[in-house]
């Protein structure tokens, strides 16, 4: 009995130490690999962040996200408690355990196993103030972790209690890691209870230990003590050894992810470095499953982001590519992710890596005709509407205030274009309709398909044409175009606006006046305008003035996808329709007169399915114009 207090060692610490050394080694190798894959500028950012005041923000974020899981609390209280009780409780057990050593056995602080198996090596009394406080704290946090693990077990059976319709199916590596994690704390509880008549214990371990003592009087030995500590140690080892190949890698990598994110590092164009940390940070919690419309409406569960990141991690390129080519990139999973994994960017990177062809001067055929400086071209016609410009000169005579770019999709829904032209005319704005007779694509579809060089070539062509008009404001009707014009194009001195923003500006400046109709309508946020570009307020401000706007549960960031985005080229048409039909049904559950959207693609998508009236915001405004 006394040698264990004197030696502070027992063979059962060996399994734990194997796991401990392994995890440390893994951590070093992983960190070196990540830093090696970062560009030099990002490495500098990482180093600079270490010595800046923002480090405190990072520590706060790590505390809030990794330990308390604040984002999950906001989704569901039960789920939040489950995650934070395990993470925060475990952290506190480690922290308080170390403090305890400083109090009672400062000379043992250098033994890494000592705090883990403290109760076995140390006898302490609950009669002292210090002792009783530590006993209470350790038992309290142990109870917290145990309650979390109990909830985790319940969640595998009754996930609806936790606000989840679906959760991930686990493969054997995840199962092994998860079951060993579940075992660690009950085993610790048993081991400490069985030892409590020697080393003392708190409200939980001591009271259970007394029960055990009562049994013990019949058996009259302490035969179960050491096997329990062995089991506890082995459970820890199994958990540590499976950690790098399981979902629980996120415990380590999420800390790094938050640090890198706060240091200002963003997704690169390749899936290593920061993006690699993101892949390992996916905890496979499955919170992205319910929002994904491929899963809920089109029964394409294997295409969900959580499966995608897993396939990327396991280098199952074929499955990962398939998921990437199916994904509509509506961003709903990214919004739902509590870790902040931008899986849409990861998919784009993967797609781009698969596009190996490049064509030099691929779109030079546009040059001669699309250049608005040229006469006789489709685009030039528009510029030469004024009589003096109609003369066959090579110069653009007038500089319009606004250049209007309808986009390819709007050409398929000409009512939007006509409405916009009427609005421009009613406001008395001098405008140029850049692609009236069919312009070229904005480049976003190519970008979403992974063809980055092709996209750049189109961007260059369009930039030239837009700057040549000399307009200071550019209005586009298609959110797909809007997104790339705003983010990727370098249009210096040109303000890029979506027509919802522009119409609102016109209304607020008093250039157009509208009357309010009694029509009941709901607004559908297009993915590219809402989640991708953050425009939620403007369309609603407009609609409040022109119709009786109703609310749906799918507003703002929770908006649904129409199923026909420019990504997802691999998705069959049937599946797209299933998504569209479901989205339309959900949004029109309470009957309305009209469903308003701000994207030609969404409009077409819903219009071909239902009998409901689907209209673009520009059409609605155009109808309600008060002409003076």
């Amino acid at each position, binding site marked *: 009995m006394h040698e264990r207090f004197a030696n502070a060692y027992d063979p059962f610490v060996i399994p734990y130490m194997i796991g401990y050394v392994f995890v440390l080694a893994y951590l070093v190798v992983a960190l070196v690999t990540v830093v090696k894959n970062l560009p030099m500028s990002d490495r500098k950012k990482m180093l600079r962040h270490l010595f800046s005041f923002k480090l405190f923000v990072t520590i706060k974020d790590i505390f809030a996200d990794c330990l308390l899981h604040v984002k999950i609390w906001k989704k569901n209280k039960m789920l939040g408690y489950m995650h934070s009780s395990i993470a925060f409780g475990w952290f506190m057990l480690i922290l308080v355990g170390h403090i305890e050593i400083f109090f009672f056995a400062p000379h043992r602080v250098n033994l890494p196993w000592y705090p883990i198996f403290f109760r076995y090596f140390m006898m302490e009394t609950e009669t002292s103030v210090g002792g009783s406080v530590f006993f209470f704290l350790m038992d309290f946090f142990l109870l917290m972790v145990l309650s979390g693990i109990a909830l985790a077990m319940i969640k595998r059976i009754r996930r609806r209690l936790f606000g989840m319709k679906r959760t991930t199916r686990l493969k054997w590596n995840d199962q092994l890691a998860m079951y060993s994690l579940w075992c660690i704390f009950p085993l610790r509880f048993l081991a400490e209870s069985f030892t409590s008549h020697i080393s003392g214990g708190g409200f939980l371990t001591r009271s259970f230990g007394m029960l055990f003592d009562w049994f013990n009087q019949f058996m009259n030995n302490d035969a179960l003590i050491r096997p329990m500590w062995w089991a506890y140690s082995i459970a820890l080892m199994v958990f540590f050894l499976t950690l790098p190949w399981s979902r629980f890698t996120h415990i380590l990598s999420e800390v790094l992810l938050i640090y890198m994110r706060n240091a200002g590092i963003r997704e690169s164009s390749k899936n290593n470095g920061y993006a690699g940390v993101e892949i390992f940070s996916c905890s496979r919690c499955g919170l992205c499953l319910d929002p994904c419309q491929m899963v809920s409406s089109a029964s394409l569960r294997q295409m969900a982001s959580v499966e995608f990141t897993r396939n990327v991690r396991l280098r199952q390129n074929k499955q990962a590519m398939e998921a990437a080519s199916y994904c509509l990139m509506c961003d709903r999973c990214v919004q739902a992710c509590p870790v902040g994994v931008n899986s849409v960017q990861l998919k784009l990177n993967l797609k781009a890596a698969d*596009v190996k062809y490049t064509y030099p001067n691929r779109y030079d055929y546009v040059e001669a005709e699309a250049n608005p400086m040229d006469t006789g071209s489709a685009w030039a016609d528009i510029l030469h509407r004024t009589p003096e410009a109609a003369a066959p000169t090579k110069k653009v005579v007038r500089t319009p205030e606004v250049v209007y770019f309808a986009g390819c999709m709007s*050409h398929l829904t000409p009512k939007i274009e006509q409405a916009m032209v009427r609005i421009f005319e009613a406001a008395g704005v001098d405008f140029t309709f850049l692609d009236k007779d*069919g312009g070229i694509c904005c480049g976003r579809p190519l970008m979403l*398909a992974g*063809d980055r060089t092709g996209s750049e070539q189109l961007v260059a062509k369009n930039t030239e044409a837009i700057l040549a008009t000399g307009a200071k404001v550019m209005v586009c009707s298609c959110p797909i175009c809007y997104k790339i014009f705003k983010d990727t194009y370098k249009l210096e001195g040109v303000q890029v606006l979506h027509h919802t923003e522009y119409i609102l500006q016109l209304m607020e400046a008093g250039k157009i006046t509208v009357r309010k109709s009694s029509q009941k309508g709901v607004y559908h946020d297009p993915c590219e305008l809402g989640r991708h570009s953050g425009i939620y307020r403007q369309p609603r401000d407009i609609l409040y003035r022109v119709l009786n706007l109703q609310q749906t549960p799918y507003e703002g960031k929770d908006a649904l996808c129409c199923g026909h985005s420019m990504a997802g*080229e691999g998705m069959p048409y049937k599946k797209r329709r299933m998504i569209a039909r479901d989205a339309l049904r959900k949004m029109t559950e309470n009957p309305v007169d009209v469903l308003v959207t701000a994207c030609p693609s969404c409009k077409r998508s819903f219009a071909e399915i239902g009998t409901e009236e689907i209209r673009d915001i520009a059409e609605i405004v155009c109808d309600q114009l008060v002409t003076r």
Partner: protein
Amino acid sequence: MKDFGFGIKKSGVIDLDKADMSLMREIAAEEPSFLHCFYCGTCTATCSAGKYTGFNLRRLQLLIKRGQLDEVSERISECMLCGKCQWVCPKGVNTRHVVMLVNKKLHARKIR
């Protein structure tokens, strides 16, 4: 001999037994809707690129199915992937995916 611009016309006969159907098979395996095309030409009528060049998706699909890949590899890069053709296709052919696949497969053949 001086070239007067006249000559014997090449035979237009396509021997489907000897034609190179591998590209068609590869694409059809990854995008089954490729086989649904019934050559109505709606895609070509709406095509953004077709406004400026002779790019003709209907023709390219037909050529792939006949194994005449020369014109396909010459023209396929002109597509801007804007997706109008996909929207108007009455048979729901995933035209954007077909174009992507043709690009990828032809590139893989060149480097092989």
